[in-house]
């Protein structure tokens, strides 16, 4: 921790992310891990992180930064990485660079999935990091395919008939692992040591690496802004958000809670799940718990 704090800060203070946002915690660690190898170019998909850190004529980025559009950060950074290879071979670029793409769950699970899949398949030497806050937070909390079952969002609100999202979240980390790239991991800002080790691995492998990192959103999840890390921790301890990595096709759980907490302990502290505590909606919470249990057991069975 001490060592980390001494490394140069590539995302400067003064940006306009919300107090209590989980994303900058991740971004600052990721840029540190990348800068261990030299220069860094960060690509950022349209979203909270992008709009809050690059308001012209200011920028919070002390490394090179490129924002292109919403769905194409993987393709964009793959172009930057390709240019680096070309210019390096022609002796026009000096020094070493690492390339990292940041996309939210909207830009990664949904609209950017095709570009991500293409870039992973092509084998670019890049790290893609999804900062997953489980909805389109930038535009005011709309449902994404990462939004948990039964959660309230502005496009799947809790009403008289419907009680939040009716589907379970997409297993994006599994989808990425199916690309058989050198390194895939799921991590959380609450477990910074685990996260930093995974970031270091991701930036060390040759070829594409992917991290899916839970970054709670105080506005969208509805919890006090000083409980961000706690919200991430509970997601891990309830096994809603397991920490694991996939290296060369081998799956490994990197954190097993001594005692798996009931999902309710995480759910009850967030406004987006408030309706689940009412007796008439208990069955939804039970369904959500059953799905978490099933996915956790599947992961354990797959893990070495």
């Amino acid at each position, binding site marked *: 921790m001490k060592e980390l704090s001494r490394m140069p800060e590539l995302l400067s203070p003064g940006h306009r992310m919300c107090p209590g946002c989980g994303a900058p915690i991740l971004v600052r660690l990721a840029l540190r891990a990348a800068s261990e190898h030299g220069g860094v170019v960060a690509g950022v998909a349209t979203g909270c992180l992008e709009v809050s850190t690059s308001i012209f004529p200011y920028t919070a980025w002390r490394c090179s930064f*490129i924002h292109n559009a919403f769905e194409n950060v993987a393709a964009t950074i793959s172009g930057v990485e390709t*240019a680096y290879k070309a210019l390096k071979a022609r002796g026009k670029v000096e020094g070493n660079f690492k390339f990292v793409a940041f996309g939210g769950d909207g830009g990664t699970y949904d609209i950017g999935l095709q570009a991500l899949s293409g870039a992973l398949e*092509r084998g670019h030497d890049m790290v893609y990091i999804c900062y997953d806050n489980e909805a389109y937070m930038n535009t005011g909390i709309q449902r994404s395919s990462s939004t948990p079952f039964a959660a309230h969002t502005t496009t799947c609100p809790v009403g008289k008939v419907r009680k939040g999202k009716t589907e379970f979240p997409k297993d994006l980390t599994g989808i990425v692992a199916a690309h058989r790239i050198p390194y895939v991991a799921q991590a959380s800002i609450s477990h910074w040591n685990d996260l930093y080790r995974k970031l270091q691995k991701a930036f060390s492998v040759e070829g594409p690496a992917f991290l899916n990192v839970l970054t709670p959103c105080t506005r969208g999840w509805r919890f006090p802004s000083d409980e961000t890390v706690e919200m991430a921790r509970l997601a891990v301890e309830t096994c809603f958000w397991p920490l694991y990595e996939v290296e060369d096709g081998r799956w490994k759980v990197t954190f097993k809670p001594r005692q798996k907490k009931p999902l309710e302990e995480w759910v009850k502290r967030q406004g987006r799940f408030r309706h689940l505590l009412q007796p008439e909606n208990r069955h939804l919470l039970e369904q959500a718990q059953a799905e978490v249990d099933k996915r956790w057991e599947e992961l354990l069975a797959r893990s070495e």
Partner: protein
Amino acid sequence: MAERMALTGNEAVAYAMMQINPDVVAAYPITPQTALMQKFADFVADGEVDTQFVLVESEHSAMSAVVGAAAAGARAMTATAANGLALMWEILYIAASTRLPIVMPVVNRALSAPINILCDHSDTMGARDSGWIQLFSENAQEAYDNTIQAVRIAEHRDVLTPVMVTLDGFIISHGLEVVEVLDKEAVQDFVGEYEPAYTLLDPEHPITFGPIDFSDYYMEHKRSQVDGIEAARRVIPEVGREFGKRFGRSYGMIEEHGTDGAEALLVALGSTAGSAKAVVDDMRERGLPVGLVKIRAFRPFPYEELREALGKAKAVAVMDRSISFGAQAGPLALEVRSALYGLSLPVRDYIYGLGGRNITLEEIEDILQEALEMAKTKEAEPLVKYVSVRE
């Protein structure tokens, strides 16, 4: 020494790209551009270029990757057609606004629906407001020459604007022509080294590309983008003259053919201009005062050149290979009328050749005969006619 070779338009453009030897090419195949991309792939496979060739999963990613590469200081190219160009739409604007000097051959093809793989100009005409420079080619030679010149135009410090080089699908892309292919060294010397003003890969100077603007800066940025494409009015003919001095074929914004003393003038784009030249020559031999103005640069549009060239005539017929739905005429005729604003010259638009519908020499002659009639009557009604359509 330059060499005369039998090449299709696609092959000619692939040769130009090989001789330019860009740092990065990212592309996705689509008919009728596929053969161009395949030929370039052959050059890569045979080591004729050391370009990094990225085989992306869509045109959207092709343009996105090329934007990333250009921002990183690479000379970057792609190529597409029709629906592929439409899929790039969002990023076309971003490439132009970010002032990245990308060069992209576009093999003109009709947009769906109904799906159709043959030529018209609906694809590039739809992109006419995206901020790109658009150069049209009459034949494979021009497609080759334009691709080489496009690099210089795009990268000119006063321009820094991406360039589309268009060639008519199948008519040019798949037609075999004799093309004079220049020496690779001569092309390399003509295009020179690309020296980017800003790059993501300067370790001493990190840079932020693609920031968010609000109402306090957006308008100034858009206004300064206009300066870039306006500077191209000067740079396109400059580069065309230099190309002519070195290689014997000069280029400007427009090309006039038989306009001296002409009473009726035809305005056309692309391969149709070649057919129209033959028709004009034939009618001139018969003593009919007709001529042709070929538009080479559609963006920036050559208003002054056109006003000068058309202003001396008594009637103008325009040939549009696409429709601007709900407008008073096709895209080309709208621009021509705008160029002639204030002059009392009858202008009629002829919409033709959609989805690859053939245009014959006889049909072009009919249009010119009608234009001669317009010159007498001063009557342009109907303002739009559809050529060879069953109604």
